[in-house]
């Protein structure tokens, strides 16, 4: 009966409580993004009355979301007091997991990275080991650097991430890492810290990171290409990250080069394999020496050899660059970016020969209008772009107007009723799973 009443009331005129949440959310986002910071500007931009604005601001100061800052520019009369967003009201935990390394950091609520740590890790050590390592370092970083309690986790994973069915719902199956399938990685991490978690593919967070703090700062159309063991691309078009229908946009490593996949001929492993062959048959004396000394070769050695002038390695990296460039050219014609950023271990070690190869192919195969002002550069952020991007994902999710309306009145997203329900559901589901007898039960 009670339920029926509520349903009826939400039809037609908004409830006053809904309206209040909406105005709180609107004002918070105006201040947070710097679009309006004085009371007068806020009244004008929000089209809310003076009394309402005053009341909402007072509420948010009390909740610890806003504070009064310095005096702004006077426009006749007294100088107005600026409102400031309390970006230290909470913190964001961010992590980027890759095939052979993990990165972790803490960001403030503006998505600004405050601390970061990178270390080698093997993905095939299994989800339990990685989960444990993440929790240990997050605990340590929070305690050691005395940052405020977390409001959310942003996670970058190697491979595409499906879109969840509803807000605060974690993705049930990680398609990305085969051996992780069925392991409740996101649920476990979310429960461990009691905060919502948002995941994206590594290449998508790196694209967002480059757009926020790297070469793409201030640009609205960029392509980021990650050249590692696998090859993939991320796209920001007109300021928005393009995720695709299944969240799997950008798998350019699967385009064909002859009979092979691009990543099978231009990925890190392919380059190392070619290098090894050249070391063995004498085409590269430098690599032969390195192989003898180390017993193995990686793309890093080939990049170093190219820098020292080893002709075979210069040509190999140039060729890989051209192959990647040929895959990028149609994409460039399609979206007309102002910048292409090349990252990943192959880009880091590949030096100028690789970049020259990419440029050659892209410029040759693009329409003159498209290539006229196009810049192609190597990433300067390295793996930090994944962390900055992961923080940006959480900021965008938590402060998305509809989500924000669900928690702004309580002062923290941790009190969002939908999040609390989903946390409860996940906890129950995990407990049920844990209670089941271990091992296979005969049918």
């Amino acid at each position, binding site marked *: 009966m009670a339920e029926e009443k509520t349903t009826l009331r939400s039809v037609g005129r908004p409830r006053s409580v809904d309206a209040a949440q909406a105005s709180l959310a609107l004002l918070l986002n105006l201040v947070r993004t710097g679009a309006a910071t004085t009371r007068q500007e806020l009244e004008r931009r929000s089209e809310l009355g003076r009394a309402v604005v005053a009341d909402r601001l007072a509420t948010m100061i009390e909740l610890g979301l806003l504070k009064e800052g310095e005096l702004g520019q006077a426009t006749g009369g007294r100088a107005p007091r600026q409102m400031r967003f309390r970006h230290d009201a909470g913190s964001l935990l961010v992590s980027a997991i890759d095939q052979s*390394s993990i*990165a972790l950091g803490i960001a403030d609520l503006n998505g*600004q*990275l*405050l*601390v*970061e*740590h*990178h*270390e*080698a890790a093997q993905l095939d050590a299994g989800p339990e080991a990685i989960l444990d*390592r993440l929790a*240990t*370092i997050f605990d*340590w970083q929070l305690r*050691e*650097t005395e940052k405020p309690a977390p409001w959310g986790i942003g996670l970058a994973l190697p491979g595409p991430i499906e879109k969840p069915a509803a807000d605060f719902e974690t993705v049930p199956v990680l398609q990305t890492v085969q051996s992780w399938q069925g392991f409740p990685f996101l649920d476990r991490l979310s429960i461990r810290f009691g905060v919502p978690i948002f995941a994206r593919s590594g290449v998508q967070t790196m694209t967002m990171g480059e757009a926020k*703090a*790297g070469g793409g700062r201030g640009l609205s159309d960029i392509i980021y290409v990650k050249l590692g063991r696998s090859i993939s691309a991320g796209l920001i078009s007109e300021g928005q990250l393009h995720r695709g229908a299944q969240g799997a946009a950008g798998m350019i490593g699967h385009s064909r080069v002859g009979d092979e996949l691009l990543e099978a001929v231009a990925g890190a492993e392919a380059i190392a394999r070619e290098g090894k062959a050249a070391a063995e048959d004498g085409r590269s004396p430098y690599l032969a020496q390195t192989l003898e000394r180390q017993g193995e070769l990686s793309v*890093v050695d080939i990049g*170093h050899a190219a*820098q020292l002038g080893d002709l075979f390695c210069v040509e190999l990296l140039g060729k890989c660059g051209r192959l990647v460039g040929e895959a990028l050219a149609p994409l460039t014609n399609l979206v007309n970016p102002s910048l292409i950023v090349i990252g990943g*271990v192959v880009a*880091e*070690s590949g*030096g*100028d020969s690789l970049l020259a190869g990419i440029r050659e192919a892209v410029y040759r195969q693009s329409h003159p209008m498209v290539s006229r002002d196009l810049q192609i550069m*190597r990433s*300067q*952020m*390295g*793996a*930090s772009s994944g962390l900055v991007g992961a923080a940006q994902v959480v900021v965008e999710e938590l402060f998305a107007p509809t989500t924000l309306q669900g928690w702004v009145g309580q002062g923290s997203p941790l009190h969002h009723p939908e999040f609390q329900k989903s946390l409860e559901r996940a906890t129950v589901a995990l407990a049920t799973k844990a209670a089941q007898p271990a091992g296979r039960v005969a049918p």
Partner: protein
Amino acid sequence: MNSKTPGDTAMSIAGLGPHGERAVPAAQIQLTQADAAQARARRFSIAVVLHTTTSDWSKQELAGIAATLGLYSAALVEVVDCNFDFELQVAALARLAREKVDAVISIPIGNARVAEAHRALTQSGRRLVLLDNAPTGMLPGTDYASVVSTDNFGLGQSCAAMLSAHIPQGGAAGILGYGIDFFATHEREIAFRKWMGSHRPDVTLVRERFADLDGAGPAAVAMVDKTPGLSGIFAVWDVPAMKAVQALAQKNIDIPITTVDLGNEVALDMARHGMIKGVGAQLPYDQGSAAARVTLAALLGLPVPPWVALAGREVTPSDVIEAYQVIWHLPAPKAIVDSVRAATAAQNPVGRH
């Protein structure tokens, strides 16, 4: 029998750079004859900004920088001692951005507080090479040329492995950590914990922090008092380690300690078979020399890797004299040599001839 040679004791590089970069070993940064000739012809001027110039580490770092720059006719025109004060560093960088120097080698004091001043120096057209760390948010290429550092992660792992031998099954080990947001000491502590977690999960870890050096002794004593059965301590560098040794000795406590850097006092304590059982040492002279080469390469417009690292060197009481020579490029002081001889004689009273 100690079969280790200096070659064996050089560790491989375990840590990743400030942006997750894979390290380029310092030995790979070399100038060709043509580069060297060009550098000599251009007579570069370079300034160095350090947190302090009084420590053993700083003196050796400077010696490495000065000697290597000299080889390429580059003048070291100023050395700034910031006395651990970030405001002094900010002021010094602002001044250098207006002076006639081509490049600056600097060790950032703290994290975010000095980032802007370093950035401004690069924007003034001078080349910037950082030692040990890049403040969070600064980017190679745009904000600085390169970071040259010892593999602090590897040093932490090494100290854990050396301490582990002194911790009984199910025992406890303590970490004497630095209470300031500082990348190098953070990396050492994270690595120490990681090594213990994966190799010695039976060991309970406890931790005390000190914010200034005078707090290190009391913190070590407090840790021992609070943790019955504490069997060893890892101190994040040598100066607090020796503060701990002194404070503990006053209370008649004898406990194995491992630490980072072979300062004179630590070397003497090891030679006397005191509490210090092992050291993961940086090679500051070599680091300084590498930083100088990277700076010259950057000034010549050559591509420089964003993260250049040097492996540390493990030192145990049995090879403290030889390690001293490798690390400090000097003969070990007489007190250390005499102590090692006395300790060896005590162990082998008959003697072998």
